[in-house]
């Protein structure tokens, strides 16, 4: 394949038919360009959708109590369900292999004050695991830890907006902020990719808030992430089991939709994934069809080349060229033209995407780009396309009877 003579011949035919080669190469380059642009657009859409969700870990499940709508187990309908600390422990013990992170949430509102600045913020009292579940990005200090929970420490992790509002230019770390007139030490500041509202939030240890609010062990919600190695089916199966178990524990009719809500992100993701998968399929389909036109073009030029060189091929065969060598020559030329022009198209698409891609930042469409797998796929498609384009002409060439080289009287 890396034979100087073979390449010399390929370059020669390309050189003698510059315009023709360019025009056909263009069709393949154009096809690849469109294919990559389509895939990048789908990618952009996917990015847009994913951005709206990446506030939370994508493998998260939320368990929220409700009010029963059916009588069950001796209880009347309309019973309010209350989750307790025990429920958390129970889930932890029941699904040691399935649960990755788990945290309770206790919701409260607080009027926060620092010096003369005040503001009203929502407080979420959580366990340390909550940081991983919510993907909270602590930019200074630290998050709530085990010791805080055990000691029921009055500490707070405040959002970037909260810090801006209350502390202005001061460093909040180590300062005391009053939440409903109780002093909390600021131990960390966080940002959130989700939205600004999330940054107007304050996190505190769950135990601290449970004590402040009447020494209860009530919790408002349980958030957890499952084993990230799970695929969709396994994730849905797990949340199903979780729901069944929790309903049984709280004596809720298994068919009662209102008693307990188990929300699995995987379900929402499944919808988006299948939607973008369809779009991707359409993109590939359309791009591929255009590519077929390019392939036919290359095949066409190769047929012409072979026709022109029939005599030469005949002479070669008379001199002892085996059919395989002729086939190789034609295929290599075809792959070469296809690959080069395809890469030019790829390069163009890539340059345009690199230059313009970051400018798109809308919720539905953001940063369209090609990743390595797209490039690899395109390369493989190109080489296969080149082989396909050259196949028929190569067969034709291999079947040239050397006799034609002699019949020139």
């Amino acid at each position, binding site marked *: 394949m890396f034979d*100087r*003579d073979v390449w*010399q*011949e390929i370059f*020669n035919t390309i050189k*003698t038919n510059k315009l023709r080669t360019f025009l056909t190469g263009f069709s393949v380059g154009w096809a690849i360009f469109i294919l990559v642009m389509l895939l990048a657009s789908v990618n952009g859409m996917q990015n847009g959708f994913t951005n709206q969700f990446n506030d939370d870990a994508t493998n998260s499940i939320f368990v929220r109590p409700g009010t029963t709508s059916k009588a069950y187990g001796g209880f009347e309908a309309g019973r309010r369900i209350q989750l307790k600390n025990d429920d958390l422990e129970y889930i932890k013990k029941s699904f040691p292999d399935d649960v990755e992170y788990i945290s309770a949430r206790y919701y409260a509102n607080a009027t926060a004050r620092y010096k003369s600045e005040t503001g009203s913020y929502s407080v979420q009292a959580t366990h340390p695991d909550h940081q991983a579940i919510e993907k909270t990005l602590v930019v200074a200090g630290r998050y709530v830890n085990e010791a805080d929970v055990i000691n029921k420490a009055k500490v707070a992790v405040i959002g970037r907006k909260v810090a801006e509002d209350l502390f202005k230019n001061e460093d909040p770390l180590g300062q005391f902020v009053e939440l409903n007139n109780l002093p909390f030490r600021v131990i960390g500041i966080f940002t959130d990719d989700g939205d600004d509202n999330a940054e107007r939030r304050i996190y505190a240890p769950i135990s601290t808030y449970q004590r402040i609010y009447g020494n209860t062990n009530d919790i408002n919600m349980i958030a957890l992430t499952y084993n990230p190695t799970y695929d969709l089916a396994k994730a849905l199966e797990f949340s199903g089991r979780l729901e069944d178990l929790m309903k049984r524990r709280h004596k809720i009719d298994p068919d009662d939709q209102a008693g307990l809500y188990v929300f699995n992100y995987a379900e929402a993701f499944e919808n988006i994934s299948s939607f973008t998968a369809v779009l991707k399929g359409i993109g590939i389909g359309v791009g591929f069809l255009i590519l077929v036109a390019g392939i036919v073009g290359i095949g066409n030029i190769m047929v012409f080349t072979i026709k022109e060189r029939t*005599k*030469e091929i005949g*002479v*070669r*065969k*008379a*001199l*002892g*060229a*085996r*059919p*395989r*060598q002729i086939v190789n020559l034609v295929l290599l030329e075809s792959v070469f033209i296809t690959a080069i022009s395809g890469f030019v198209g790829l390069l163009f698409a890539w340059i345009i995407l690199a230059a313009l891609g970051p400018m798109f930042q809308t919720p539905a469409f953001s940063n369209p780009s090609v990743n390595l797998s797209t490039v690899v796929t395109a390369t493989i498609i190109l080489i296969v396309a080149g082989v396909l384009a050259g196949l028929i002409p190569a067969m034709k060439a*291999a079947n040239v*009877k*050397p*006799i034609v*080289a*002699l*019949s*020139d*009287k």
Partner: protein
Amino acid sequence: MIEIKDLHKSYKMGSNSLHVLKGINFKVEEGELVAIMGSSGSGKSTLLNILGMLDGADSGEYTLDGVPIKNLSETKAAQYRNKFLGFIFQSFNLINYKSALENVALPLYYQKVPRKERQEKAMQYLDRVGLKPWATHHPSELSGGQKQRVAIARAMAAEPKVLLADEPTGALDSKTSYEVMDLIQKINDEGNTILVVTHEEDIAHMCKRIVHLKDGVIVEDKKIEQVRAGQYV
């Protein structure tokens, strides 16, 4: 070297078939210089095609250097052609975009001789046909006689058992024709077996034996007194 027994060949032309070779019996010893003569349609080209393994016979036997040539696959035929035969064509059939040297080296390439060795060998053969100074020239820069000499060097480069020349002087004027025949005679003097298809009497008489074909049969096969081409050059 070549042995042919009762060779038949016919071509289908629409509904009726044309019987071109009607039982040829023919033997060539090593070192012979044979002219195959005949008017057009006599079957001489068909015979050459079969001898050159470019076409198969319908029936009959063909043995080349003790190897029976029958039912060859394309690949096998290519191998045999490369090993046994050197072709010289009327229209030279050099490859335009290759230099004289590269043209001569081409059969060696198909023998998978390494590039360096190939070029050395090709240069030797170019030297033998007196075209060493022209090695880097392309065919378009050569005269007809020079082109045919390059073609002869190419045919010889693979050191074949038999050289097949199809009207080697057909496209040349008489002076260059004699030059080319002089070269062919010299190659024959070195012991190479050569078959020349021609319809020119003077060219045929520069061979050592003339086989006359007419309507698909050999009508005459005689040894002759060779006329040396060198005296005309």
